[in-house]
């Protein structure tokens, strides 16, 4: 579980996060949504410790991020997995070495044990016989899978995903969403996904935080988002005619039941 209290962050005196408080639960997919410039990425990077908040608290289980020692912080970082928007695979390493990288850096496993673990997680994300290929030789969807494999290879407690669906076709996007959700349940991780993909919101939004102009505007689940009267949320989520229709049908169906 990750708990955030009154988080503030500014860049060059421009406030980006304005007192965000929320809790991300373990074993479910927690989504952060909002328009571009709403502060989603800064929020995610603040949780990761890439940005230092101006004020506010972040708790990882019972660990308060502000007051932990450097050793505890290093240890904590090894319990985090991150799937970046552009996958962020190391161009100079092949797929096997990309996934092996955290193991080489932080474990004392033998070469054989590392290979076994690498193959295990690559198979878990449905990738076979790609170990010797380079990131530039595989598709965007496969790169995302490799990024997920690299993120989970150390059995992390926390998984962060920054727009994991961006640039993917709808089918692959759904597969990636489902994979992340399955892995979250299987590994009992606290998963936080930063997205503005509405399919993801409807499919895997077990807990959703909606940010607007640096504030937490709304919080709920994908079922509640259909019914919400919050104008900012409905304007954002149901901006397309198709989603407006889907919402309308959902409300009618719900009333009939």
């Amino acid at each position, binding site marked *: 579980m990750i708990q955030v209290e009154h988080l503030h962050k500014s860049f060059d005196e421009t406030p980006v996060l304005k007192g965000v408080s929320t809790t991300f639960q373990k074993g479910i997919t927690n989504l952060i949504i909002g328009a571009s410039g709403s502060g989603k990425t800064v929020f995610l*990077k603040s949780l*990761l410790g*890439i940005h230092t908040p101006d004020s506010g608290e972040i708790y990882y289980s019972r660990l308060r991020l502000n007051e932990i020692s450097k050793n505890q912080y*290093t*240890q904590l*970082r*090894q319990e*985090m997995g*991150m799937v*970046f*928007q*552009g996958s*962020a*695979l*190391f*161009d100079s390493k092949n797929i096997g070495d990309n996934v092996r*990288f*955290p193991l*080489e*850096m*932080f474990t004392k496993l033998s070469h054989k044990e590392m290979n076994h673990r690498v193959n295990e997680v690559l198979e878990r994300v449905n990738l076979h016989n790609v170990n010797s290929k380079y990131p530039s030789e595989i598709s965007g969807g496969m790169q995302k899978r490799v990024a997920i494999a690299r993120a989970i290879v150390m059995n992390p407690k926390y998984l*962060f995903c920054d727009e994991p669906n961006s640039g993917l076709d709808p089918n692959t996007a759904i597969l990636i969403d489902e994979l992340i959700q399955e892995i979250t349940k299987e590994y009992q991780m606290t998963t936080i996904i930063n997205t503005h993909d509405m399919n993801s919101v409807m499919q895997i939004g077990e807990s959703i935080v909606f940010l607007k102009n640096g504030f937490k505007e709304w919080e709920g689940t994908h079922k509640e988002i259909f019914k919400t009267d919050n104008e900012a949320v409905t304007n954002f989520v149901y901006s397309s005619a198709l989603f407006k229709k889907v919402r309308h049908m959902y409300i009618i169906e719900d009333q009939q039941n």
Partner: protein
Amino acid sequence: MKYISAIGRYFMMIFEVFRKPTKWSVMKGLIFKEIDELIFNSLGIIIFISFFIGGVVTIQTALNLTSPFIPKYLIGFATRQSVILEFAPTFTSIIMVGKVGSYITSSIGSMRVTEQIDALEVMGVNALNYLIFPKIIAMFMYPFAIAISMFVGIFGGYMAASVGGFAPSADFISGVQLDFIPFHVTYAFIKSVVFAFVIATIPSYFGFYLKGGALEVGKASTTSFIWTSVIVIILNYFLTQLLLG
């Protein structure tokens, strides 16, 4: 103010490079890879340039020593002094700033814009140590490249003198051996070690702290080339004053 802040950040970067080292088993491989990339892959251009620069120095010296009272062996002497003291360590370093420096800035800068550096940091890796330390260590091999440059430069001068008929081979060789001061080679190696550190770290700084996208990677490579060259030229002046003055 902007420059002072950049200088401060550069020295803080250097401090961080030596803090929290990467596992030796991983670092070892990185160092060998960088030696191959930064030193061995540069030997071709170093040899090519040194050979022709040595030749040009010889021809220009010969053409300017027209008086019959000046002995021909001075062509060999002037070539040796020019190549050892200046052309090999400084001229080659400026070439290396262009080749190696641009490579370092663009490779680290590309890692920055594609979030690969963020990925390292999220994993808990000291990205500065992981990326820059092996380059610094690899560049300590740079004096070997300079030694090759010295040899090839003088050889280029010898070829120009003998093939072009500017000086008899025996005169040129005796000029090369005339009044040889071993400290001049030490001076050249001291300079090359300092330049090597500068060539490894300043371009890394420009790549690591880059903000923006692909266009900024190109701009950073150019800025890095300018600043690294300026620092090399300034340090060359002070080191010469300090060591030979």
